[in-house]
C-alpha cells in the first residue's frame, strides 16, 4: 500500500506526487457520478413548476439572477406531501412493526440455532439461509391466494374498524407486516448468527453452570450482548421494507392501504406531461427516511449489507 508521502522516484507536481493527484481526481469524479442524480433531483424539486425550463436541471433556481434556472418554490414539496401523505403513514404503520418482529424473531432463531448447539441444526439453518435468495416472484400468486381467499383476515378485521385509529383497510397492512416479517427472517437470522458465533462458548457454559435456563441465557446474557447487532439489523430491515414495492403491489394491490412506493410510481404524470419538480420532490420525500437513516447510521448500514 502506498503511503501519504510520495515514494522515492515518483514524479511530483507542485509538491504532490502525480500519482496522488490522479487518485484523488478519480475518487472525486466517481463521487460526482454517484451524487449527481440526487443533486439534480434536489435542485429540480425546489423549482416552481411554472418557471421550469429544464435547461439547467443541476443548478439551483436562481431566477432572475441566472436566466433559465427557474424560480425558487416549495410548491413541489407541498404537492409531494399531499400526494404521498397517506402512503407515508401506511408505510410507517407497516415498517415499524415488521422491522421489530423480523429482528426479534431472527435473533431468537439464531440463538436457538447457534448458541444452543445440537445435532441437525445446520440443516434447519440452511433452510433459513436459502430463504434469503428466493426470488419473490416464486411465491406471489400463493401469497395473494392466501391473504385474499384462505385467511379471513378482512372479516376478522371488520369489527375492529370501530376502534379509534383502526380502519378496515388496515387488514392489508397486517398481512403485509406478517409477510415482510417472514421474508426478513432469513437475513436477520444470518446477521445474528454471525454475531452469536463470535460469542464465547465458555461464557454460555459458565451461565449454564451458574444455573441459568435456556431462556435466562437468552434474556440475561445473549440479548444484552446483541444490542449492537440489533442496530445493524433494524437499519437494514427498515431500509428493505420501506423500499419494497413488489409485495405491496401484490398484497395491497390498490386502495387506501397503498404504501409510499406504490404512490410514488404514478406521481407527477398527467395529460399535460411530466411535472419533473413534483416528481423529484416526491422521490426525495419517499427516500428521505432511508436517506436520513443512512446518513446518520451509515457505518451500521454498511455492516449489514457487507454481511
Amino acid at each position, binding site marked *: 500500500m*502506498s503511503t501519504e508521502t510520495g515514494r522515492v522516484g515518483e514524479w511530483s507536481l507542485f509538491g504532490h506526487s502525480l500519482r496522488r493527484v490522479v487518485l484523488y481526481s478519480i475518487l472525486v469524479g466517481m463521487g460526482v457520478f454517484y451524487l449527481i442524480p440526487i443533486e439534480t*433531483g434536489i435542485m429540480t424539486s425546489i423549482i416552481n413548476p411554472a418557471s421550469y425550463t429544464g435547461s439547467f436541471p443541476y443548478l439551483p433556481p436562481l431566477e432572475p439572477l441566472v436566466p433559465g434556472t427557474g424560480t425558487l418554490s416549495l410548491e413541489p414539496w407541498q404537492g409531494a406531501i399531499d400526494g404521498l401523505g397517506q402512503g407515508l403513514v401506511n408505510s410507517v404503520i407497516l415498517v415499524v412493526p415488521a422491522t421489530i418482529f423480523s429482528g426479534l424473531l*431472527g435473533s431468537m432463531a439464531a440463538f436457538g440455532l447457534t448458541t444452543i448447539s445440537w445435532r441437525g441444526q445446520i440443516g434447519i439453518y440452511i433452510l433459513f439461509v436459502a430463504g434469503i435468495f428466493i426470488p419473490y416472484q416464486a411465491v406471489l400468486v400463493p401469497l395473494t391466494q392466501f391473504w385474499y381467499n384462505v385467511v379471513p383476515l378482512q372479516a376478522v378485521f371488520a369489527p375492529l374498524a370501530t376502534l379509534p385509529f383502526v380502519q378496515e383497510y388496515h387488514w392489508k397492512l397486517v398481512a403485509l407486516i406478517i409477510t415482510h416479517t417472514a421474508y426478513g427472517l432469513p437475513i436477520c437470522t444470518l446477521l445474528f448468527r454471525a454475531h452469536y458465533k463470535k460469542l464465547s462458548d465458555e461464557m454460555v457454559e459458565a451461565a449454564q453452570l451458574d444455573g441459568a435456563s435456556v431462556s435466562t441465557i437468552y434474556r440475561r446474557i445473549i440479548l444484552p450482548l446483541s444490542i449492537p447487532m440489533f442496530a445493524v439489523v433494524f437499519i437494514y430491515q427498515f431500509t428493505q421494507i420501506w423500499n419494497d414495492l413488489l409485495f405491496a403491489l401484490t398484497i395491497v394491490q390498490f386502495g387506501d392501504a397503498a404504501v409510499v412506493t406504490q404512490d410514488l410510481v404514478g406521481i407527477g404524470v398527467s395529460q399535460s406531461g411530466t411535472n419533473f419538480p413534483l416528481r423529484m420532490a416526491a422521490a426525495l420525500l419517499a427516500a428521505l427516511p432511508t436517506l436520513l437513516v443512512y446518513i446518520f447510521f451509515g457505518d451500521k448500514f454498511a455492516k449489514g449489507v457487507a454481511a
Partner: protein
Amino acid sequence: MRNPLTVLKRRLSEHREVRTDGGTTSAGSILDRDSVRSAPFWLPPFLLIGLFIYGAIAWNIVLSLTDFQGLGTPDYSALDFENYVVAFFGGTPSWSELTVSPIWNSAWNTVVLMVSFSVVCLALGLVLAILVDQEIRFENTFRTIYLLPMSLSFVVTAKFWLYMYNVETGLVNLFLGAVGVGPIEIVQNPDLKLAAVAFALIWQFSGYAMIVYLAGLRAIPTSHFEAARVDGASTVRMYWRVIIPQLRTATVSALVVLTVFSLKAFDFLFSMYGGYQPGPSADILATRMVREAYSNGNWAYGSAIAVILFIMALAIVTPYIYSQYKRGEL
C-alpha cells in the same frame, strides 16, 4: 458473635438442597434435549418461514400445473405441464383464446441484464475498493457517497434516472449535447433501454461491490503487500498477481448477491415504465411473471414462469450454499 457469612452459606446450601432434590432428571442425552429446550426460540420463526416461504413455493409449483385464470379459485383436479409447454414453445393454451408467446425473449433479457450488471458492478467495485484502500484522506466520506444509492428504493432510483435520461431536460442528454451527440431517446429506445436499465442499476449497486471488496482487501495481511513490494512487483502486478487472487471469496459472495438483486429488478422496471409494460426489449422474467399473473390474470401461467425463475435462482445459489457449508462458514 456468629459470622453472618456462615449463616448465609448455610442458607445457601439449604436452598440448594430443595432445588436439587426437587429437580427431576430425565434419561436421554443432553444433546437431544438441547434441540427441544431451544425449540421455543427457533421453532416459531422456522414455522413462519416454513409456511410463508417453503409452503408458498410448494403451492406455487402446484398452481403452475393448473389452468387457474381470471377470477375465481384454482381447480386442482386436473394437473398437467401445459403451462411449461406454452412457456417454452408458445401457442394457444386451453385456458385462453389468445396466443401466448414463449418466455425466450424475457429469459434472454434476464440473462443479459444479470451478466452485464453483475460483471460491471464487480469490476467497478473492485477498482473503487482498491482506490479507497490507498490510505486516502476522507476515506469515510468517499465510502459513504459511493454506497449512498444502495439505501434508495428501486422506485426512487427509477424516478431519478428517468429524469437523467429524459430527451429534453435530462442530464445525460445535456452531456451528450455538450460533446456534440444527440439528443437521443433512451428510455423508450428499444436498442438502448436494457443498457439504460443496467446502467442505472450499476449506479445503485456498484457501491455494494466496493464495500464487499474493501472488506476482503482489509482482511489480507499487510505483510502480503509488503512482501510483494520487497519482491520488486509494480503496483499493478502486485494487485494482479498477489492481491486479486485472494479476493475470490469476496467475488463469489458479491456475485451471488448481485445476481439475485438483478433477478429482483422488477420494482425498478415497474417504476421506470409506470406499469407492467416495459416493452419487449426490456422485458425480463420478473416483469413477465407479474404481468401475466396480475395484469393479464393468467395466474397459473405466471406461476409456471415463477417456477422457472426460482430454478434459475436455485442453480446459482445451491452451489454457493453448498460450498459455504463444506468450508464450514454457515
